[in-house]
């Protein structure tokens, strides 16, 4: 009987060697350890034995059962591990294949991106957003800004007219008049928006473009403050290494007036074809607000001083992204938008 027990054990262990999968193992478990299995069968016959022998054999049998159970369990876990490894191998993918999304990649226009950069830089300097209509009174667009009818500087901006009194604003400056007339000084506003000029579209002109204007009204502003503000803003938008300078110019609504040049963003200021070898690029106009404008808008120019600056968002976008044709900004070609 004992021999038989050992034989069963050996047979089971030998068969266990050949087990390949969960199924084989289950069959083997049933065959040896199951209710009708070989070991159970032996145990059943034990009742016929003498008590002493039964106890001995029972102990042996239990040991065999326990041994087999452990071995079976070992194999089971090996099989499970192998199966899991196999599954993982099966599920292994080429992680370098392109990702999949169910929405295509959307994009904000570079105009929006640049507009926000400029705007947020100014908000950081204490400016608040302000806006006004695109179709505007001639009075606000020109007259209040020290550009009375027949002023030669009106020719600087070719204007789309609706009628004698109403036009498409040629700059965001009419909002200066609106701000001066409605807000309580001191204040700082940033004014974004579309503006319009009678310029046939070409690589560097668009009849519709986007401008941003900053206006600061306070008691003791100086041209040095204007320089400092512009310098901070230029660094925020173009980078810490970019320098700016003011260069005398003329705008009817400011005096003194200046153009703002920044050190060339392409060559860093040494001179290249983009900056015509000068190392500088013109990006915006600015100045101390003309006292006539302050007065026309109902404030006392000897009490309140103001400065203003206006930047072409399109121009900055073209500079920043190296866009060589402004029309691309208004065409809606996905291949263009995708790049930026």
């Amino acid at each position, binding site marked *: 009987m004992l021999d038989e027990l050992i034989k069963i054990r050996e047979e089971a262990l030998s068969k266990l060697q050949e087990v390949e999968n969960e199924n084989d193992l289950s069959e083997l478990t049933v065959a040896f350890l199951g209710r009708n299995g070989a070991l159970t069968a032996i145990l059943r016959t034990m009742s016929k034995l003498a008590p002493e022998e039964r106890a001995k054999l029972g102990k042996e049998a239990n040991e065999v059962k326990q041994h087999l159970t452990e071995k079976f369990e070992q194999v089971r876990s090996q099989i499970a591990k192998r199966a899991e490894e196999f599954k993982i191998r099966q599920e292994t993918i080429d992680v370098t294949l392109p990702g999949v999304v169910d929405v295509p990649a959307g*994009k904000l226009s570079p105009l929006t991106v640049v507009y926000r950069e400029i705007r947020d830089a100014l*908000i*950081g300097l204490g400016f608040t957003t302000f806006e006004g209509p695109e179709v505007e009174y001639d009075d606000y667009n020109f007259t209040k800004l020290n550009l009375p009818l027949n002023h030669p500087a009106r020719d600087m901006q070719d204007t789309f007219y609706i009628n004698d009194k109403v036009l498409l604003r040629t700059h965001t400056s009419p909002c200066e008049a609106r701000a001066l007339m409605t807000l309580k000084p*001191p204040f700082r506003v940033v004014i974004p928006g579309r503006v319009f000029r009678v310029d046939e579209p070409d690589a560097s002109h668009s009849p519709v473009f*986007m401008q941003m204007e900053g206006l600061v009204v306070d008691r003791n502003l100086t041209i040095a403050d204007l320089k400092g503000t512009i310098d901070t803003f230029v660094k925020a938008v173009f980078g810490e290494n970019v320098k700016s300078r003011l260069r005398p110019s003329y705008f009817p609504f400011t005096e003194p007036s200046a153009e703002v040049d920044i050190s060339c963003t392409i060559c860093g200021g040494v001179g290249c074809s983009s900056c015509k070898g000068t190392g500088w690029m013109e990006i915006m106009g600015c100045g101390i607000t003309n006292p006539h404008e302050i007065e026309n808008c109902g404030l006392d120019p000897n009490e309140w001083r103001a400065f203003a600056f206006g930047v072409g968002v399109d121009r900055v976008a073209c500079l920043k992204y190296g866009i060589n044709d402004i029309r691309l900004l208004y065409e809606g070609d996905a291949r263009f938008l995708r790049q930026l």
Partner: protein
Amino acid sequence: MKLPLKWLKDFVEFNVTPEEFANRMLLRGFEVAEIIPEMKATGVYVCTIEKIEQHPNAERLRVCAVDIGREEPVTIVTNATNVYEGCQVPVALDGAVLADGMEIHPTKMRGVQSVGMFCGGAELGITDAEYEGASNDSVLILNEKHVNGQPIADALDLNEVIFDIELTPNRPDCQSIIGICREAASALGQRMKEPEIKEIKGEGNAEDYAKVTVLNPTLCPRYLARVVTDLKIEPSPRWMQLRLKLAGLRPINNIVDITNYVLLEYGHPMHAFDLACIEDAHIVVRNAREGEVVTTLDGKERTMSADMLLIADPHKGVGIAGVMGGLNSEITGDTKVTLFESAVFLPENIRHTTRKLRHSTDSSARFTKGVEAVNAEKAINRAIELVDMLGAGKVIGSMINVTAKEPAEKTAVADIAHINEILHTELSGERMAELLSGINIDAEVNGDKLVVKVPHFRTDIEDGIETDWDIAEEVGRLYGYDNIEPTLMVGKTFQGRLGESFALEDKIKDYMASMGFMELYNYNFTSPQEYDLLLLPEDDEKRQTVRLRNPFGEDQSLMRTTLIGGMLRTVQLNCNRKTGHSRFFEVGNVHFNNNDDLPEERRMLGAVCFGTGESFFTLKGVLEQLFGSLGITGVRYERGGGEYLHPGQKAVILVDGESIGEIGCVHPQVKKGFDLPVSPFIAEIDFNKLIAKANAERKFKPLPKFPIVPRDIAIIVDSEVESQTVIDVISAVKTKALIENVYCFDVFYPKVPGEKGIPAGKKSMAFRFELRNDDHTLNDEEIGQAVKAILKSLKFRLDADLRS
């Protein structure tokens, strides 16, 4: 404004490079747009033709051995017939660029290698004005001896440059050589000496020869005239011709050239009349008669209107004031007596006239920007000086002077401290005066004031409210903005703020981009035809457009009232170019003509998607999530919307019963009209209404205390019944249980009648809803009653049956 360096040197000592000069001018507010060489052609040298032989293979070509200053002669093949052995000519060698941009390289001509090409005036870009003989249509034979191999520009003394300077409208005085030289001198650290004009007294009295009457002194505040008799009309001397040429004018004859020379030098336009053609020798300055026709010097007939100023004699017009002289009184070879006119006309009137006639000239450009009375007198005296210098005729004594108000000296008083405040400087009054003196403005310190004697030519400096700013501008630019240290603003601190609507616009744009939409900025202009293409009825609100008075063309004559046309053109462009993208959006303004002064401006959000995988519902899904993210609830979609949408696939979007926009598939005819290969789905939403709804406050409601019981039902209803109708019916049922969050999760249309037990004309819809109660956990009975009540109501209102 063209400033030839040669001319500049008459007034200042030029001691820097042209580039340095340009930079200094730039930093004073005068941008040099271009530095133009006097001689455009490069790579052209002096050579002597040593030997000329017939070309072996070509009858019309000749082979020349040419000395270009090297050891060995070179070979040039030419077809020129005027060259001869021993003559000196210009030769363009390898790499030369001619005036017309043509590049020269060695080439084989009928088997003989030629290293370059002989040049005539045309190739060099010069005429007789620059060098005698240059206007001939042949190779230029040099008439003086030069060194072979010398650059031709040096040999012809055309090796200097011309500065093309951009002027700002506040400096009309700089539209003249003298004016710009004042600034140039200061830029070079000098002060220009104002030129003295030799007074030519002449004989006799001009008033015996001519008479001037000004009938409208407002439009013509000053009219000066001088008379010259015994004219000898001939070409002007070469030095004068050359200067005119360099400054961009064409020499004509001595008298016309004198007026043009003075125009350039002093910036004051003049005119010379043939006095014999002026009836009664009487100039009358008057408004034109409506429809009066004048033939101008260029031979064109110009029809005048009554608001234009005419120079006339008692019977006819002889010139358009400030614009152009008349052909009938032109200086010709036979002119014996001339009347020089030097007048001041009102700028706005000349501006108006040029615009109305669509004709502007060098003269009108200067009048439009503003001329002044003192300069008018200097100009005419200078012209007479030149007549005398050139011996062009006999100057008659005295000047005819019709002046409404003699020019007075102007003084402006500026506050020194105020100027320093504006500029953030600490300059003394004396230092300021010194700076101003550099541009020929004299000023004196008087206590804390700077008393500025405003020179006649500085019409931009005001004596009044603007004075301090005017003077600050001059002092600032002369002192140099670079010398002003930047500061940060002090005083009240501000909290910068992004306005609410700006913040929401950011959010909405970011959301649309995250959903795969690319952002558009379409032009605001559109064509009237677009509204026909969009099938809009005559009385549609979108036809209440604002029309531009001066559009580029009819197709861009209206301000858009919808973003849809632009979006459809974007679809067309992207399909045509196969860009592979099919979702776009725009946030932009549209304008409606509401008969107020200013049109109604509405900001719109437009979205479009098309192609595989897109449907009404994908776009609707995008909007639903957008509304959700903005906290907008209670959005309903009702069948309806514009004519441009597919009648079976369109809806208006309602929030709290108010329409905020539309969504749908474009109408098949619109698709055709816009030539689209696909049927896009579009939505257009009133941006301000959208953000107004988004502003609704959100408040926390306690979470339900008792369990929620979800229930599904499937019903069979008429196939026309919309899910919203069913939802409304279910939601309206009153039971002990609250019925919430009803939505449709499945619709089934039988493909053949009777499929899955659904008869013809019917469909199956499945709804899910939640039942709960605020006070207690619902029991089975209450749940059963609620479902029963729902089914009863559905049967009663919609004849809906439970699908078994």
